[in-house]
């Protein structure tokens, strides 16, 4: 197990190197000069040259690449061109807000989605099943900005149950609507996946055997069927966690939530290369870690999975 984890961690090195290289190339081919943007609508060429030199943009591209690799290896992602803030500080500060939002959204999604999926499968073709699946299909199809706006208009601006948008200095009431908005889609997805996995497992011979043995339906579903249906559900859950932790631009924009998604979009608009690069590397790391955790969790769910 330990050697498997170490091996996986070692694999992350070439993956991160690949990401760093691709990111560097892509960002440098995007048109738009960050130094020029800093000048505003007009500026003189002498100042532009000085700013470019300060940013290291006057160096040959290969030298910029090696400098970037060297800095990343040292854990230094540089400073934002736009605000001069350390990229690591900016990312960690925004990640705190994103993490808080994503964590609650995924808890909500897992609780609602998996529960609804299991009940739907057990009570297949019942009124609950039909209603849950209609809601799930709507949840997967509904655009995030539409859900967010609707929730805000209803609960914050008409019923006045929620104080408003923003981070609210950590007040939990500000968390409710963005969590629901962000959680709707993964919850719907999880409900559909859980239902189909459960239905497949429930039709297996060993479930029939368990029932024939006279085990209570609660035990058959909970101990024998649900655990075996979990592997694809966990895989989907893992990708959803990675997605949500990488920032949810639309939800963050609508709810004025100071997360990583908004930071990245602003960086893209303003060609803030260090923030763009740092953000993508950060997201890549989140995906790698989340995938590793998901892979490790398979062993706990299914004893047949071995890591040797």
């Amino acid at each position, binding site marked *: 197990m330990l050697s498997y984890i170490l091996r996986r961690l070692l694999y992350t090195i070439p993956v991160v190197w690949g990401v760093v290289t691709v990111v560097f190339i892509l960002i440098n081919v995007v048109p738009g000069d960050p130094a*020029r943007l800093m000048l*505003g609508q007009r500026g003189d060429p002498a100042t532009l040259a000085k700013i470019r030199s300060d940013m290291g943009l006057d160096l040959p591209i290969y030298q910029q690449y090696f400098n970037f690799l060297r800095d990343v290896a040292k854990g230094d992602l540089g400073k934002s061109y736009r605000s001069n803030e350390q990229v690591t500080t900016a990312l960690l500060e925004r990640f705190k807000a994103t993490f808080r939002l994503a964590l609650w959204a995924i808890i909500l999604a897992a609780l609602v989605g998996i529960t609804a999926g299991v009940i739907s499968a057990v009570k297949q073709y019942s009124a609950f099943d039909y209603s849950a699946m209609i809601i799930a299909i709507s949840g997967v199809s509904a655009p995030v900005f539409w859900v967010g706006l609707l929730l805000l208009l209803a609960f914050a601006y008409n019923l*006045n149950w929620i104080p408003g*948008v923003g981070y609210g200095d950590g007040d939990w009431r500000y968390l409710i609507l963005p969590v629901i908005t962000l959680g709707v889609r993964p919850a719907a997805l999880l409900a559909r996946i859980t239902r189909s996995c459960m239905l497949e497992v429930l039709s297996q011979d060993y479930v029939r055997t368990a029932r024939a043995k006279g085990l209570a339906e609660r035990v058959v579903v909970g101990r024998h069927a649900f655990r075996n249906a979990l592997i694809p559900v966990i895989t989907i859950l893992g990708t959803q966690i990675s997605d949500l932790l990488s920032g949810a631009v639309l939800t963050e*924009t609508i709810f004025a939530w100071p997360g990583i998604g908004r930071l990245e979009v602003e960086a893209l608009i303003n060609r803030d290369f260090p923030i763009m690069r740092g953000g993508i590397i950060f997201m890549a790391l989140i995906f790698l870690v989340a995938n590793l955790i998901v892979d490790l969790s398979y062993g706990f769910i299914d004893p047949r999975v071995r890591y040797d």
Partner: protein
Amino acid sequence: MKKHGLILLTLALGLSALFASVAFADEPVMGGVLRWHEINDPPKVDPAQVTDTTSSRVVYLMFDSLVENDADGKGVTPALAESWEGSDGGKVWTFHLRKGVHFHKETEGQPTANGGREVKAADWKYSFERLVYENSPRAYFLDMVKGYQDFISRDETGAKEWAGIKVVDDYTLQFELEYPFAPFVAVLAYNTFVVVPKEDAEKWGKEFNFHPVGTGPFCFDKWDHDQKLATKRNPDYWRKDDAGRQLPYLDGVEIVVIPDPTITYEEYKKGNIDCYRDIPDEFYEDVQANYKSVFQERPQLGTYYYGFNNEMGDFAGPEKLKLRQAFNYAVDRARISDLVLNGRFPAARGVLPPGFPGYNENLKGYEYNPEKAKELMKESGYPDGFEVELLVNNNPRHRAVGEAIQAQVAELGIKMSIKVLDWGVMLDLCDRGEVNLFRMGWVVDYADPDNFLYVLFHSSNKGAKGNYSRYSNPEFDKLVEQARVDTDYAKRMELYQKAEQILVDDAAWLFLFHYSNSLLYQPWVKNIHMPAFGDYTTPLYNVWVQK
């Protein structure tokens, strides 16, 4: 009789109470925090680096310049300089500084490095030189000050100081210019040219952006990025109101960041923000219908235009003059403003906005005349129209205006396609002149026609320095050069008016609109007055809240 007396007494008491309440309603109230909305986090609040309006909003709260733009944008008024005079034919400018102005004593709840000491002339010299050390994108606005070139190239020249800035005594500062430059004092009102304390600027270095210290009405308190930037009342601010009360009245100002306009409007209606500037077109009618008494709107000192590339391509040179003129006659500006912009942007006949120094009431511009446009197109060799691509930066308003113009010119056979680009890409292409027809706008930096006519059209400024339309006309150049150095105000304005008429006759741009400013505020926000320079420059030192 007794009964009548009682009624009269009640009436008298009632009336006096009413008058008293009316009188008190105009009395400033100390305290309260004003929440000012911005659409994004201010990228820079170090005045040396500021180039955008959001950051400028913050700078206006915390810093002061030598002079300030007056509310109508017609000139400047004293700020930290009480008076000034020009000598040597406009080559030397001497400023007499206000005594008793102190830097912020506290920031972020901690004492500042300067300890709240008084501002002296040496601080100004330091602040101007710091702009060069920090590669300020706006330092070159002062490139006419003697020694600028030597100082920016100090590695080669060995210059230790900016020679043209002299500290005469503690309260007298002098600038010596390379050549007479009439708009010099107006340039100094730009928000980069403020005073900062050396102790704090050196303590923080590049991090000064996150720990700004100035002399303004509000001190920096806390910055939660992408959420809000909080400032607190500066108790030692140099300004007092007419009754001798210490300003500002407010305990602080918070810059609240909400990116989505629909949500911002809802937050305003809910009372969660106090001031919402630059109201988007989609809410304009609703604001007019429901919030007219707390809505200010006035023309802004800026011009919205489509630039022709006058140097190369489909519109270049005198041979394409009629084509450029045809385009100008083909557009019904007033109709587009009504249909797309709620009639908020007045049609432009030329470059200078109404009310701005040098504005010419009698300028001969282009009115909507499709027949004349057709005739000119025929004369220029395009009787059946032609195809052209317009570049606009990504913004719903620019796209909507573009589509309206596209429909109007289509009636003349002009097939205008619209390409939407990121602002950065657009600037790159315009800098290099790789454009035929492009949308651009200009909002004034300083209250002088020089900022429009010299900056945007002088042949030495082609490209990034402002002349994106790459216009060049020796006669025009001569007039604006002469106007820069002449110290006779009336004569200068006359020269600018002549120059502007040449530009219009040459149809250097497709002249479209002048910008408009707007500010929506809560009924409890009192004494707020939006200046012509821009909603983001609205002074808040004399504003109070009365709930």
